[in-house]
């Protein structure tokens, strides 16, 4: 029944097995929240913003294979910069409209993330981890320690929910839909980027930097680009987080431990499916609250997540699920070809092919080489 309902959609999307799941996910996200209590709407909204953050980290961790330990710092930078410019005026620099303020926060996060990627021309792996950790600590000790930016330490700072084109997003439900739209837009962006030459280039860099360079891709350029785009997406999450609480959130939400918690999301989910990342991000946002009565720390969840992600392997939960779906498709293809589709399959080149029918083209040249004569159907068209 469900398959029949989804069939037209499958045709539209080229039979992508994940599409029904994505549609169901978005449908649930639209339909369910009005039925929830305000507190849970607020939590799901926070979960959507965590999802956008995880999309950004997935580009850095999953696509170019570098570990970013500054996720929370970049998120906080965007939250505080956006909040500073957008909040109700304390100084002449406050009181900007939401969009310019949010863009400033996004640009700051993208710039800082891209900046820390510059040394990746020479370094990789653990050195990049240390660099990003350095960025995180630096942000904590500089930007996050200026009360006039973060608006904390006893100040009564108000960051209102935004208003566009006469529509107010002040209520939790409306703000939820705004964040849902941002999350869907971020997902579409990441999906389109992944299928573009830039996404393929980033993937090839993760697979092998030398192979990427051999086909014209500069690994350094794309690592910086991946960090900048990833940082920009984290910045988007930060920009929407700024008005989420109506007042600047405490810096404890953006410390190094929180970076580990955020990093655990793409590690557990894998980075091959956006649906997987979304599901894990929402779970990470909701489960600690749901289990609050058991006094479970969100960091414990992050720690368990990192361990689980390591055990599950580089594909993560989403990757493993996708592999099961892909395997079914492959078995069908390989069976149709009469090949063993379990683990080994190849068009066997060691077997002499059946004699091919003589091409209709004339023999246009004969090349001699010692005793052997090679007949050519057509010479290569050596364009001048």
């Amino acid at each position, binding site marked *: 029944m469900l398959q029949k309902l989804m069939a037209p959609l499958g045709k539209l999307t080229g039979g992508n097995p994940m599409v029904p799941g994505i549609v169901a996910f978005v449908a649930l996200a639209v339909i369910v929240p009005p039925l929830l209590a305000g507190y849970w709407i607020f939590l799901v909204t926070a979960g959507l913003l965590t999802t956008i953050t995880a999309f950004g980290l997935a580009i850095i961790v999953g696509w170019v294979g570098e570990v970013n330990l500054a996720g929370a710092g970049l998120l906080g930078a965007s939250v505080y910069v956006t909040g500073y410019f957008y909040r109700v005026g304390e100084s002449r620099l406050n009181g900007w409209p939401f969009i310019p303020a949010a863009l400033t926060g996004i640009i700051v996060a993208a710039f800082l993330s891209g900046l820390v990627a510059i040394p990746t021309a020479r370094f990789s792996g653990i050195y990049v981890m240390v660099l990003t950790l350095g960025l995180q600590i630096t942000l904590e000790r500089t930007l996050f320690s200026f009360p006039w930016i973060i608006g904390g330490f006893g100040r009564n700072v108000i960051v209102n929910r935004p208003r566009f084109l006469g529509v107010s997003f002040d209520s939790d439900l409306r703000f939820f839909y705004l964040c849902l739209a941002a999350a869907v837009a971020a997902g579409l962006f990441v999906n389109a980027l992944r299928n*573009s030459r830039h996404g393929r280039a980033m*993937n090839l860099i993760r697979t092998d930097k030398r192979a990427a360079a*051999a086909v014209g891709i500069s690994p350094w350029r794309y690592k910086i680009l991946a960090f900048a785009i990833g940082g920009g997406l984290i910045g988007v999450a930060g920009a929407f987080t700024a008005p989420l609480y109506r007042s600047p959130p405490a810096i404890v939400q953006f410390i190094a431990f929180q970076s580990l918690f955020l990093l655990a999301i793409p590690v557990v989910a894998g980075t091959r499916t956006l649906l997987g990342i979304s599901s894990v991000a929402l779970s990470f946002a909701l489960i600690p609250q749901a289990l609050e009565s058991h006094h479970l720390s969100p960091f414990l969840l992050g720690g368990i997540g990192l361990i689980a992600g390591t055990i599950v392997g580089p594909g993560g939960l989403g990757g493993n699920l996708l592999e099961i779906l892909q395997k079914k498709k*492959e078995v069908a293809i390989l069976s149709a070809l009469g090949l063993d589709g379990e683990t080994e399959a190849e068009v066997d080149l060691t077997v002499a092919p059946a004699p091919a029918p003589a091409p209709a083209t004339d023999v246009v040249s004969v090349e001699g080489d010692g005793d052997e004569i*090679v007949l050519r159907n057509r010479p290569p068209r050596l364009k001048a």
Partner: protein
Amino acid sequence: MAANGQTAVLTTADWTEGELAALETVEDFLPDQVREGTVLRATDVHKRFGGVQALRGASIEVPAHSFVGLIGPNGSGKSTLFDVLNGFTTPDQGTVEAFGQDVTRKQAWDRAKLGMSRTFQANHIDLDLTVLDNLLAGAYLNVRGGVVASVLGFPAVRADQKRANEVARAVARLLDLEPLLEVRAGSLNFGAQRRIEIGRSLMSRPRLLLLDEPSAGMDATEASHLLMLVKRLQTDLGLAVLLIEHFVRMVLDNCGSVTAIAAGQIIASGPPDVVAASAAVQTAYLGVSADA
């Protein structure tokens, strides 16, 4: 392999009609091939790694539209020379010219823009991606558009992507991968994975292919068939190919010219029969004394 132990001399007259159509698609996609002269020249290349002198004045030339073999025992400097030619390693001394330009200090990705592509000894493909996605990764230089244009799907980007898709299918057809386009590379065996890597190189619109032991890990029969495929493509697409191959007999039987290297020095270069007859090659590489 022929029954007499000689490797088969390869012919190019056995494309099917479908393959010929694919060949034309790929040929149209490729840039103008160099008609004559030298496409790659390395002169007096020296390279030292710590206490090891990997290359000692090595020089090599690849003429246009030629199939050149590079042979040498393990540790002779073949792969280091390839790295220097390709731009992964900067020589301590000497020059590299590609397509008439001095590229000695150019990065590998800049050399790729000139039409130089390369495969590697071990597999360097993404085993989690499908064959098609692996091939399309090679088309990076041939799809226009920045990040914004790509994400928004501007018409020029869409047209290039469509074209790359068509060419990837044609390449797959020529490499006997067409039915497997939607299968992940990791589900295929080593031979198919090597063909994917060659296909990805073709997708980068090369004028010169550097193939570093494409048949490494294969038996002689598989290697012979892969080499046959490469030679068919080289001949019919008008490419220049520089091949490192450990099946020496196959190289001598099928390459137009051969360069032999030992201990970082070129010890012979020229037509295969001349190289095979060289006392230095027989002594240093084939394990046969010149006096035997």
